[in-house]
């Protein structure tokens, strides 16, 4: 039984299956735009500071899998973000996505607080390696954000949709 369970896990974790998305492939958009869509499951520490009237400002450092349903940017990336959330109506931050080769996409984040149902918009400002010089934008909505007992939050963003291309927007 144990061997069978490990065998199943080993098979499941094999690169071939991991790489097989099974998701629909979006077409490449006009004017050199490459579109992408997917989800982002992220986890990380949140430090808070009560700012009165029941509000708390927070610094959130999230990290997790950006899983893309489209193939233009590969199957997915590691998504990391650090953001300041004023606890009322604004969050700003920076995000770095890293692919399997170690190439990065950099973006600026702006939107609503990091909380369930809230929306964030990202502006892609550049990258490294194969993404050097890219620009673009994307948005996502937090399907849920929950805090565990150790001031660590975990959330899942859905409706992650965006586009990018080489050169200025």
């Amino acid at each position, binding site marked *: 039984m144990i061997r069978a369970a490990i065998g199943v896990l080993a098979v499941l974790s094999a690169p071939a299956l991991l790489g097989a998305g099974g998701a629909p492939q979006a077409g490449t958009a006009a004017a050199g735009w490459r579109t992408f869509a997917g989800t982002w499951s992220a*986890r990380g520490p949140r430090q808070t500071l009560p700012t009165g009237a029941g509000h708390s400002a927070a610094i959130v450092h999230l990290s997790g*899998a950006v899983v893309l349903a489209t193939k233009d940017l590969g199957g997915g990336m590691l998504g990391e973000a650090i953001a300041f959330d004023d606890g009322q109506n604004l969050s700003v931050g920076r995000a770095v996505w890293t692919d399997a080769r170690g190439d990065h996409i950099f973006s600026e984040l702006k939107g609503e607080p990091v909380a369930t149902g809230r929306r964030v918009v990202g502006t892609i400002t550049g990258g490294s390696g194969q993404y050097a010089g890219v620009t673009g934008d994307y948005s996502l909505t937090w399907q849920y954000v929950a805090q*565990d007992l150790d001031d660590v939050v975990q959330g899942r963003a859905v409706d992650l949709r965006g586009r990018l291309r080489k050169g200025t927007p």
Partner: protein
Amino acid sequence: MAPAMITAVILVTWFVPPPEGLTIQAWRLFALFAGAIVFVVANALPILTASVIAVAAAVLSGLLSPAKAYAGFANGTILLIVLAFLVARSVVKCGLGARIGHLLVSRFGRSTLGLSYSIFLVDGLIAPAFPSNTARSGVIFPLAFSLADAAGAKPGDDSRRRLGSFLMFSGIVSLSLSSALWLTAMAANPMGAEIAKRFGVEIGFGSWLLAASVPTIAGIVLMPLVLYRIISPELTSTPEAPAAARLALARLGPLRRDEIVVLVAFAGMVSLWASAASLGLDSTAVAFLGLGGLLASGVLTLEDIRHEGDVLATFIWFAVLFTLSSQLNELGFMGFLGQRLAEAMGGLSPVVAGFALLAAYVLLHYVFVSQTAHLLALFGVFLDVGVKLGVPAAPLAFQLLFATNYFAAITPQGSSANLLFAGSGFLSQRDLYRLGAVSTACTMLIYLVVGTPWLRFVLR
């Protein structure tokens, strides 16, 4: 599997390029983590050895920064386990454990099976007041250990080792089932209910209890029998035991000073743990207070603490595995694997997809060292994919939430609530993984066979 072969597989995995969508760090950390677990399951290395080698490799190769790699050593829940070990020692040392053991044997001790049912019964009744199943394990473990002691099972003595194993693993399975019975019996349950709300599934205290009642009670009735058949304790029928226990109780006489101190300390800790959520108290601080009281009263001494080497070993290996698993999550491995696995079930019929999602969700607990982390990383993903494949949201949500509790038994590190029993001296690593796999499979079967029609009935 030979250690050389396991090492070779780890090395090959290390140098294979990661699957598209994962970073090299996530892939290599997975190779180390999975390699450590395989070493333990194959009985090639003790869990402490495999864990410390894995974390050393992760830091020295630059995969993890030292600050991240050692973060588990400052985790409150892991500290709570260490403290619960020490507090449990006082129950045994002062003789209160033997008294409780004799008392329970006098009521339930006509058979070994009856002792197991007494553990499930006590745990099931106190569970709704304990949002931390780790804290609850600090109450159930001394009870199970005292029962084993009263039945003549001692760690290191092979004559009744299987009896001790049976009662210890009864404690592990009992905690997993009692957590599934009540919304408030495990910290992650309310979080899961909150996420389920995003999919239109409203879960409250009453609706959880109603949905969980029949399959969980079936589990509580059947699982002691299953463990009894698998473990085959040396002692089965003991019709004379209740009378002998009553005699032993009479010989013990009234409570002694140390027993009263431990009883008061324990009652205080249980009361504070039970009200920790409503009073905003930290469960670990409550355990520190209890340990402080026991040390100050002289019931526990520094000499006693010095002899608890097993506690240090448990603290180290669990903190290491906890950290490696958390970092795998933050490096995107868990989210990526869960999402891809769930998506791979596209095209299956809703019924088959529902079962396949549940099975995959349970099996993935092999790579998690926390029930809460597993739920937060994958519950929403699996529910989302299931709903898109046409699986009804409410039954799937309940089945996944119940699984979040019962899969705790699948590995010794599957829940911090297992650690006291795993470190009892009655269960070998091989026992823990073998019994964990079999008992989790049986529990899943019970929840599927009994729970599926029951959920269809109550969710109409």
